[in-house]
């Protein structure tokens, strides 16, 4: 077991109690967000014999992002809106339900969530399942009984805030954020008390230091100097509706006592309405979990002109970079660059493109800033700017988190190979309605394929192998000590790949496109199981209207850039479990 894994277990056990080695108690399995499992039963030699052992229809259509949890022989599944929570008894034949929890969720959230009514999962801590309802509430439910323990309103639908993000629980704090980069929210992170649900602190991502919780002597960004950075990098008052949502994944380093998360895009998409860097949008922030104090921050895409949210996970690893052992975080940004950073200080050590990138020539690690190609800058006065790579779906979607294997030293991730045109327009902020201001059609990138599953060496900043896919790849990844990586595809295949070569070892058609994240766990019988959701959604079912069949009052044509995806999948909502 690696030192990191030990630290992770130590961090989990006091809060988790019942979580065992083979369990999957939090979205990324551990606080380092590795999505790495040390289970070894499934290997490259036997993965070809995997077979489905169980499936369950969630009864809900729509994007099944996120992942199940497994704790103490119980599997917990959160559906997209209306956010039903199921608890399956893995000790009994057929895995019957122990209970289900059906909360009241305001359906108005359906019109405020920008891009499908998804949920990214729950967190197990101290006998509680904690998760967010789409309409701006966090709930804690007793893991044993399904009884609601508390419910706290954290977000305001009328201001465009919804809450698909998965919480992170650390040091008795439930850390949550809100989506709404397309609605002009004033983005924030909150820390709730695990016992009562009380909101203990609120830290804004943009605005004055007093709201951002950037305190003199404590806040020490590596590249920036001065105070009020998240205020002075905006025109007056524009920051109040400047976006910076929190909708991706969080991680935590117990040694440094730092919580890491990325922020989303600035609002609106038309950058001419918000001169300046627009800190801390499209950034990584490092905070103290107990009181939210900001320790450092770094902006990946200053004055974002392409909707490059930085909501992707920050994976914590110990790597040797340029001959020196470093405690790093690794981040695959929507903007197409993979960043390897010193996680104590926020210094960029390596920044290299992991897909085709043309909005910037490179990232200058001395200044931390991208060297932008000015012909790719967008704005209402610049008309339709053609051929920008990657698209606003991201070189990698933040919705599909990567995995890291300390055995291979490699990161595994789903990528998109697409480019876009970007026609910005003037946008008007009207609370509770979209605040966007751009039309951004997509097309396939170089090579004609639209996605790939890749392995990445974050110390060198190099791709090691890739498996191309015809469609954008939007599932998360898991990698195991058996050196097998798992991922799913938009056209509905679930695949096992050799973690060292990328060779596809096995695949199974799961009934709907995969936008969720696979997990693996140990059953009561000691066997290794792998679970994943099938259920195409997010932007993809919105773009390709012909994958939808449930609404006779809403019939749409196929997407022009992938006109045949509906040949291979339609909407669904299925939990699958596989084993040897």
């Amino acid at each position, binding site marked *: 077991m690696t030192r990191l894994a030990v630290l992770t277990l130590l961090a989990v056990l006091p809060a988790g109690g019942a979580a065992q080695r083979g369990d999957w108690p939090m979205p990324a399995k551990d606080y380092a967000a590795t999505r790495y499992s040390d289970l070894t039963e499934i290997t490259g030699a036997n993965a070809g014999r995997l077979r489905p052992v169980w499936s369950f229809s969630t009864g809900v259509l729509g994007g099944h992002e996120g992942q199940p949890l497994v704790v103490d022989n119980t599997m917990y599944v959160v559906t997209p809106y209306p956010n039903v929570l199921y608890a399956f008894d893995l000790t009994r034949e057929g895995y019957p339900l122990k209970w289900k929890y059906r909360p009241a969720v305001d359906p108005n959230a359906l019109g405020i969530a920008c891009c499908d009514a998804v949920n990214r999962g729950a967190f197990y801590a101290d006998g509680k399942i904690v998760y967010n309802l789409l309409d701006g509430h966090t709930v804690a439910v007793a893991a044993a009984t399904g009884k609601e323990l508390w*419910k706290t309103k954290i977000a305001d639908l009328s201001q465009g805030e919804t809450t698909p993000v998965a919480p992170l629980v650390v040091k008795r704090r439930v850390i949550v954020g809100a989506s709404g980069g397309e609605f002009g929210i004033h983005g924030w992170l909150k820390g709730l008390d695990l016992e009562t649900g009380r909101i203990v602190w609120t830290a804004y991502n943009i605005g004055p230091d007093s709201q951002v919780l950037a305190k003199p002597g404590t806040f020490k960004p590596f590249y920036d100097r001065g105070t009020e950075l998240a205020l002075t990098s905006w025109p007056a008052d524009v920051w109040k509706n400047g976006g910076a949502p929190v909708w991706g994944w969080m991680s935590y380093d117990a040694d440094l006592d730092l919580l890491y998360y990325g922020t989303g895009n600035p609002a609106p998409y038309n950058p001419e309405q918000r001169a300046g860097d627009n800190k801390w949008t499209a950034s990584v922030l490092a905070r103290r979990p107990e009181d939210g104090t900001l320790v450092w921050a770094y902006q990946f895409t200053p004055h974002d002109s392409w909707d490059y949210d930085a909501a992707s996970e920050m994976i914590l690893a110990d790597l040797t970079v340029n001959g020196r052992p470093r405690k790093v975080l690794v981040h695959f940004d929507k903007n197409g660059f993979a960043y390897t950073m010193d996680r104590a200080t926020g210094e960029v050590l390596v920044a290299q493109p992991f897909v085709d990138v043309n909005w910037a020539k490179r990232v200058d690690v001395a200044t931390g800033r991208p060297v932008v190609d000015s012909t790719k800058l967008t704005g209402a006065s610049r008309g339709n700017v053609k051929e920008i790579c990657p698209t606003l779906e991201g070189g990698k979607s933040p919705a599909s988190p990567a995995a890291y294997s300390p055995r291979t030293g490699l990161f595994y991730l789903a990528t998109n190979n697409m480019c876009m045109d970007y026609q910005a327009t003037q946008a008007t902020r009207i609370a509770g309605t979209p605040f966007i201001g751009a039309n951004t059609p997509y097309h396939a990138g170089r090579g004609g394929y639209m996605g790939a599953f890749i392995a990445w060496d974050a110390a060198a900043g190099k791709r090691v192998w890739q498996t191309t896919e015809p469609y954008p790849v939007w599932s998360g990844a898991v990698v195991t000590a058996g050196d097998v990586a798992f991922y799913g595809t938009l056209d509905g295949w679930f695949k096992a790949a050799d973690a060292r070569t990328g060779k596809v070892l096995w695949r199974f058609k799961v009934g709907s496109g995969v936008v969720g994240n696979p997990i693996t766990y140990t059953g009561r019988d000691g066997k290794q199981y792998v679970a994943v959701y099938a259920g195409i959604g997010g932007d993809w079912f919105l773009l390709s209207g012909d994958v939808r069949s449930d609404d006779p009052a809403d019939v749409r044509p196929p997407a022009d850039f992938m006109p045949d995806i*509906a040949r291979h999948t339609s909407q669904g909502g299925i939990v699958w479990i596989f084993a040897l």
Partner: protein
Amino acid sequence: MDFRPVALALVVSAACQGHETAPAMRHEARVFAGGVAPPAGAPLASENPFRGDRQSAAEGERTFGVMNCDGCHGGGAVGWVGPSLRDGRWRYGGADGDIFQSIYYGQPHGMPAYGGLLPPTAIWKLVTYLQSLEPPANVPTESWR
């Protein structure tokens, strides 16, 4: 037009605070665009006074963009997170007055009420724009080679 964010709004019924003693949740509330509730006693006209008028349709199309309708229903009303409004099919009724009411009062699955921001005339022109969109031919079969 300049609509500054109007302080807080409606949206969630009090019942939504969700304690054990709370009554069953009711979903009658609408989101009010800009936080402004539609005036009470909405006009009850059931026929679109501008039906078929191209100038009114063009004005309605501009309003469709300015009021951020396209942010949910897509440019050209082809559908995004909100339904397509040009497929000739309607969740809440496609008669003149039905479409007007959906815009004026909103609908409970997230369609904001615009009656507080837009006068009835502007809403009728929006209706006129939507009615001007020719639904595609109804081709129920999609096939691949």
